């Protein structure tokens, strides 16, 4: 498929006020609570946040693996959330996902070829058995899996190779957009680097657009063009990757970045150690979700949600005290000099 009218300026994916609530005995769990963003064609949006911030749920809601509670998702101008069953089946082939766990995400009873070839069979993209085998072998080559593994079972392979199977399966239908849900978190650093390089190469080769979900800030910086930071189901900051690492506005982003251990002696920097832990997403109280842990929180922070505001081109943040922070009037006390 090719881009439709006035194609290339329009973002490939646009998410508007996406919400996903789960019912629990204690009340509604606001996993994703009003998230809006867009991803430019052929670019990577990194989505970072700690466990329980709703980043994985957001990725799944976009693909309608979890049915969103409300909000809209436009894929190349088509409203995904309103798509019928048949329309959705068609859209699925363009929007794929790579999963976190290279063990749980592959059916243990299927061979490598069976896993990679399944989407081809479902979408009838094969002419005959020869064509099937040729396509599967080509996909294996694309992701760097040795030919002899065609009939192997996943359990015979290590994490890195298994993750390559997951990548090949996602590529099988020639998608334009891939949600990568922590694809390297379960891997060792040397293998992690191999997979990150592979994802980068595939993006260049096929013009793929990624939503890259991770908790690892150095990984997200490496792979992303833009980065958005989530906290308790909401976006707190979004900016181009390079700018975000130079300057952060939201106190949570600042704390998050300062918490990363740097593998260099003497690199210990001023660190903001946040007090407390992420609060419960069940029936959240109104006001800024981060206020209970925020060193800068004031009473008014606990009354209304701060809106996500664009303070410079392409740079957005959601903080009631954003203006004061930007003007340099207030700073966060750092733990160590």
């Amino acid at each position, binding site marked *: 498929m090719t881009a439709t009218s006035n194609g290339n300026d329009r973002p490939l994916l646009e998410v508007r006020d996406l919400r996903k609530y789960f019912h629990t005995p204690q009340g509604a769990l606001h996993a994703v609570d009003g998230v809006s963003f867009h991803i430019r064609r052929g670019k990577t949006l990194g989505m970072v946040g*700690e*466990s329980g911030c709703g980043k994985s749920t957001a990725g799944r809601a976009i693909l309608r693996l979890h049915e969103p509670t409300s909000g809209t998702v436009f894929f190349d101008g088509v409203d995904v959330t309103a798509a019928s069953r048949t329309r959705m089946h068609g859209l699925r082939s363009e929007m794929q996902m790579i999963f976190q766990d290279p063990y749980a995400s592959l059916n243990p009873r299927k061979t490598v070829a069976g896993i990679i070839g399944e989407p081809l069979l479902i979408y009838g993209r094969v002419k005959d058995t020869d064509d099937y085998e040729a396509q599967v072998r080509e996909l294996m080559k694309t992701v760097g899996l040795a030919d002899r593994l065609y009939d192997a079972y996943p359990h015979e392979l*290590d*994490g*890195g*190779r298994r993750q390559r199977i997951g990548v090949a399966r996602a590529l099988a239908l020639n998608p334009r957009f891939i949600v990568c849900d922590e694809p390297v978190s379960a891997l*060792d*650093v*040397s*293998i*992690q*680097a*191999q997979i*990150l*390089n592979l994802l*980068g190469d595939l993006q260049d080769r096929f013009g793929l657009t990624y939503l890259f979900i991770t*908790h690892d*800030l*150095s*990984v997200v*910086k*490496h*792979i992303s063009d833009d980065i958005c930071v989530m906290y308790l189901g909401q976006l707190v900051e979004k900016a181009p990757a*390079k700018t975000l*690492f130079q300057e952060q506005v939201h106190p949570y982003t600042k*704390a*998050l970045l*300062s*918490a*990363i*251990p*740097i*593998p*260099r*002696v003497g*690199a*210990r920097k001023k*660190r903001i*150690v*946040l007090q407390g*832990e*992420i609060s419960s997403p069940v029936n959240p109280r109104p006001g800024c979700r981060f206020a209970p842990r925020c060193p800068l929180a004031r009473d008014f922070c606990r009354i209304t949600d701060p809106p996500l505001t664009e303070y410079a081109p392409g740079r957005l943040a959601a903080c009631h005290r954003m203006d004061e922070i930007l003007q340099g009037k207030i700073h966060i006390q750092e*733990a160590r000099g």
Partner: protein
Amino acid sequence: MDTILEIRDLSVHYYADRETVQAVNGLNLSLTRGATLGLVGETGAGKTTTALSILKMIQEPQGRIVSGRILFEGRDVLTMDRAEIVELRGKEVSMIFQDPMTSLNPLLTVGEQIAETVRKHDRVSKAEAASRARAMLETVGIPGGRAEDYPHQFSGGMKQRVVIAIALACSPKLLLADEPTTALDVTIQAQVLEMMRSLKEKFVTSTILITHDLGIVAEMCDQVATMYAGEVVEYGTVKDVFDTPKHPYTLGLFESLPSLDEDRDRLRPITGLMPDPTRLPPGCPFHPRCPRAMEICSRLSPEPVRLNGHLVKCHLYGKKEG
């Protein structure tokens, strides 16, 4: 400075299906009293097996320590009898495991679990143990009143604090921390690391910190040992090893990391995979993946070479003879 722990020529094998997994192969390591040693390496490098060996906790008959000596304050742990080992565990050497979710008993309150450790090693009354448990909780930053709570009432970071409280309850001389913050989020990890650092100053505990995160090593450790296929391939002070890594594997690890302060288009990963521990390659186990491998590397296992302050096990340095 005296040495609290010395491991000499340790080899540990596991046996499965007529195959022998060579988990640790002739490992040498020593730890200065009061210091923190970082043990880094990838999955399957033998880090956890090494730590378990120090407590003589290798499960027989699947696993066996086939050779070596582990000298803790001059006494060989491996020749101790059962009573001595039980006395050693928890009292003098204690261990923190990676997963705080599974290392606590869900049916006992956290206070009881700390008190249990205290009473096992120190003869004190129940009330005394309970009050020490509360004090321990406060030391790790949990209000003493929460001693009556059960593990499921704590979050992941808090559970790991409880685990640390249990480990430190008897003021051990040596703490083995196996990936203590891997399961935690980075802001919580920052809290726990901050706390461990201050506890270390307070208790003067020698620590072996097992991690795959080089950043944590840079922040927490004095010395570092890089492990590969059951051997220590590079060993020295963190400053020496991080500023001038010598072993191609250590170098490769640094190259693989996406960096926060510089922009790289592509990462330079170590090619290939960890060797199959049932069929280790002859010579240097790293040679099939090594960008600087020479002919000798596939024949002869390198001897450790002392190189301005650190030890490197590589043929690139030292005498090149057959």
